[in-house]
């Protein structure tokens, strides 16, 4: 099917050139990396950019950089790039599992993590992982660079803290300093390609600090602060987990839509919390568990 809307196409090779284009066009420009969202938005008449700036050839926007103190996911890094990294699987398993759950191979080969957080749909799989790792979004414009903590990034569905003349150059994920375990659980209508009905990232470390973040059950992905506070410093028990599960309805605000009802989402978010905590506890003991079928399907 032919695309009705047409635009100017730019393929800058340098960041400075990209920033100048953004300054010139402002919100009339759209950045193109993987294009798996942008192409659909343009086709379906959601967006009508005057200019599309392809950033796949900008030298400074590298893919992945493993540093001593953390991982920098550059604007060109696709979900497949993340999945192919054995180091990410080892040190950032929660991120790796969330990347695995995104769409299908043909989409993951193209779609980028940075694009995912810029599209900022409520069901984005990368959201919980980045929230649990306290990631930092790096932005640039002709005025300079700035950083935004991921907790302040998501403002509303499809709205972020990014300004029209800015580009996200990458996301920095600090390396957890002490022994830890994490997992990402995604509830879909079936195994395989689907948007999340609900998603949950769970992270725990040796000091018994828990980090929990939900997606697809509220306007933006969000940490479950009350539950984290309840669990902090405590070893898990059946009673404690039951108490944590009872707090779930206070932490999320799901809607009913084509993928599931509100009550089902709330119920399953409790189950996901229970199983996610169990997985992390077992992983802390060194047990190898695959989370792929942990919710059935």
């Amino acid at each position, binding site marked *: *099917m*032919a*695309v*009705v*809307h*047409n*635009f*100017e*196409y730019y*393929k800058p090779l340098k960041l400075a050139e990209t920033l100048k284009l953004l300054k010139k066009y402002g919100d009339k420009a759209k950045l*193109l990396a993987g*294009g*798996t969202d942008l*192409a*659909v938005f*343009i*086709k*379906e008449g959601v967006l009508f950019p005057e200019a*599309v700036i*392809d950033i*796949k050839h900008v030298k400074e926007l590298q893919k992945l950089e493993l540093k001593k103190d953390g991982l920098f996911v550059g604007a060109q890094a696709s979900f*497949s790039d993340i999945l192919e990294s054995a180091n990410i699987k080892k040190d950032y398993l929660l991120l790796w599992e969330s990347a695995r759950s995104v*769409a*299908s*191979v*043909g*989409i993951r*080969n*193209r779609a980028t993590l940075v694009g995912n957080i810029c599209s900022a749909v409520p069901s984005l799989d990368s959201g919980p992982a980045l929230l649990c790792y306290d990631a930092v979004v790096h932005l640039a414009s002709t005025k300079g660079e700035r950083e935004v903590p991921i907790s302040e990034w998501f403002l509303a569905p499809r709205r972020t803290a990014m300004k029209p003349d800015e580009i996200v150059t990458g996301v920095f994920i600090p390396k957890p300093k002490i022994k830890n375990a994490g997992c990402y659980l995604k509830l879909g209508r079936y*195994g*395989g*390609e689907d948007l999340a009905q609900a998603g949950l990232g769970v992270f725990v470390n040796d000091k018994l600090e828990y980090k929990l973040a939900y997606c697809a059950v509220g306007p933006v992905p969000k940490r479950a602060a009350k539950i984290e506070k309840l669990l902090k410093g405590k070893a898990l028990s059946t009673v404690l987990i039951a108490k944590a599960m009872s707090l779930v309805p206070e932490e999320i605000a799901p809607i009913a839509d084509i993928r599931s009802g509100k009550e089902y989402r709330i119920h399953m978010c409790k189950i996901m919390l229970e199983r996610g905590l169990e997985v992390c506890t077992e992983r802390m003991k060194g047990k190898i568990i695959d989370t*792929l079928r942990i919710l059935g399907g």
Partner: protein
Amino acid sequence: MAKIKFILNNEMRTVDVEPNETLLDVLRDKMGVKSPKCGCDRGDCGACAVMIDGKSVRSCLVFAIEVNGQEVTTLEGISQPKLTKLQEAFIQFNSFQCGYCAPGVIISATELLNNNPHPDLEEIKEALSGNLCRCTGYQPIFEAIMDVSRKRKK
């Protein structure tokens, strides 16, 4: 209109495109390559799958202008000079009925076997989760891929 140049199925080709033309439309309507099909036109069904630099992509979500200087392989390219073992297995196992999803399925399965010569059933299902087939129920497709994997030397 911009002139782009890229390798299509081992051949250097040049074509004029508008920025908003998808790779799928350009391949089919301007370059005579008909194996990629338009199904959902939004990246969900996999019927339009082709490879860019060896990795499968949804050609309905790629603007043709993006592939300037790259290498695009479609089913036509994979089938040269003769059918692959995978394609022969698909024939042997009657893996297709209407055939609309076939080019995309073969692209995805070829990529899988390139990266993982001996996938198990779960890995095959995962690799094909972005390819919808409404005829076969998938079983004969899985069987063909498993057969190729079994016959390959470990």
